[in-house]
């Protein structure tokens, strides 16, 4: 039984089939990378899984349940957390307030928000999440004033504070320095101890370092799937993507 499974999942925009008949299956605890050229449908695929975009057809199963009809916020409550490719933070709020919104949601998962929240626990969760991405010292700064790469890390901190079961990272290392990328890889490994990770990434070094399995997409469909070694040596992949 897979943790996440899509069945003939499709989405068209007008006449364009952005995702066409994708059967994807991810095991619990896995770090799965999704790679492919620009426009291959990677972001659309994870948007379908997170519920941000409704599918044209097909179905999605998560943790044993059919979640195809669930709204995006209902999927978040079940543990599917999406971090945006195009940074989407609350620019006019502080870092702490940004993460607080995620932390208080996780803390009030099973009850309405106006019923007693444990403020201390929420604050601790905020500090812990910022600490993990290395932004703790800047908690009181406005999010919009961060450098782009650090805004991406804030996205990840918001994701972490939601206590995800499935964390979707959409090009998280864009705009980070070499050292920050190394730290980030360590962070992803530590997150993977208690969550499954879907990683869309262009930086092949990061993909090779982190992923246990790699799914390659092209023109909205799955082109190949396998371990990093298998993918590196896959003839079709090399033609379509690696360009050799």
């Amino acid at each position: 039984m897979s943790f996440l499974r899509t069945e003939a999942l499709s989405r068209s925009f007008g006449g364009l089939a952005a995702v066409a008949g994708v059967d994807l299956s991810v095991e619990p605890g896995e770090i799965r990378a999704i790679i492919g050229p620009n426009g291959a449908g990677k972001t659309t695929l994870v948007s379908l899984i997170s519920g941000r975009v409704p599918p044209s057809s097909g179905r999605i199963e998560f943790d044993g349940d059919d979640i195809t009809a669930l709204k995006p916020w209902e999927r978040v409550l079940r543990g599917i957390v999406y971090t945006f490719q195009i940074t989407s933070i609350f620019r006019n709020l502080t870092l702490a307030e940004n993460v607080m919104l995620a932390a208080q949601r996780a803390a009030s998962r099973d009850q309405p928000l106006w019923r007693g929240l444990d403020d201390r626990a929420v604050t601790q969760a905020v500090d812990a999440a910022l600490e993990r991405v290395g932004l703790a010292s800047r908690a009181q700064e406005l999010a919009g004033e961060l450098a782009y790469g650090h805004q991406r890390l804030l996205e990840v901190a918001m994701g972490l504070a939601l206590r995800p079961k499935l964390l979707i990272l959409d090009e998280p290392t864009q705009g980070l320095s070499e050292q920050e990328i190394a730290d980030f890889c360590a962070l992803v490994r530590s997150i993977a101890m208690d969550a499954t990770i879907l990683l869309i990434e262009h930086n092949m070094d990061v993909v090779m370092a982190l992923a246990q399995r790699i799914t390659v997409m092209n023109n909205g469909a799955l082109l190949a799937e396998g371990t990093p070694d298998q993918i590196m040596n896959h003839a079709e992949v090399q033609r379509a993507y690696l360009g050799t």
Partner: protein
Amino acid sequence: MTGRARVWVLHGGVILLLFLLQFVLPDYHHTNVARIMVLATYAIGYNLLIGYTGLLSLGHAMFFATGLYGAGLPIYYFGLHPVAGFLLGALLALVLAFVVGLIVLRTSGVAFMIVTMMFAQAFFLATLYFNGVTRGDEGLVLAAEARRFGFLGLDLDLAEPATRYNMALSLFTGALLICLALVRSPLGRVMIAIRENEERTRMLGYNARDYKLLALSLSGLLSGAAGAAYVLLFAYMGSSFAAIQYSILPLLWVLLGGIGTVIGPLIGTALMFYLIDKTSEVMQSYLIVVGAVLVALVLFFPKGLAGTLRQRYARWLP
């Protein structure tokens, strides 16, 4: 001082100042300030929606007028107890806001402005259509006896200036504290998040529509409470309170005083009130002056007085 202490000192200080003002103000201004506090309560309700949730309504006059008529008509026709009338007016506005919200929240942006305005216009026309009951533009005046009542062992007469002033102050204080507590709570945080980035808020696990409906209902409740207090304290209800002007006024008050600040609505309401009052004393074309002041404020205080102060000097202002 910590942020929290500053917030309480500032807002507590404003309440204290308003309380003390009643002992020094001449009669004329005494009545004005009571009126300003009731209207500022309306502005606080409006600000909850536009300032904290980011929804621009052009139809709030229907909530204010629902409070006004919901309290005033039963008192006028059936001799309802004023306290019961107040509660009824506020409650009806809450229910109306919830029901209207179910429909208007299917839209957003400009469509939301237009649909709220349509509902309010329909409400306004209804108050004219049923002029057998409401007396339309001419309105109704509550009799002096209807505003004298016993409550918790006190004999109150709302025509009495001191009673009226302190009732208005209690209402305003209640609204201010509700607003202050709300916007600093987890719930208020979500409302602000919706204002800032609705898509992101949804992807953090919040059903944005439910929170917007809650904000609109609360906003309607406070607006209705202000309307109900208005008819009780000033004894008059008329269709003009349901007209488009009373939907635009709270928008101006809030923009002037500081959108998305707790204290802004009071500042804006008082400023606008006295601006019109003073200029209309000296000239007939006073609206030219009012217009010029508004333009100047937009130029130099684009976020309103309190909003611009917050941006430049006091980031802790809620």
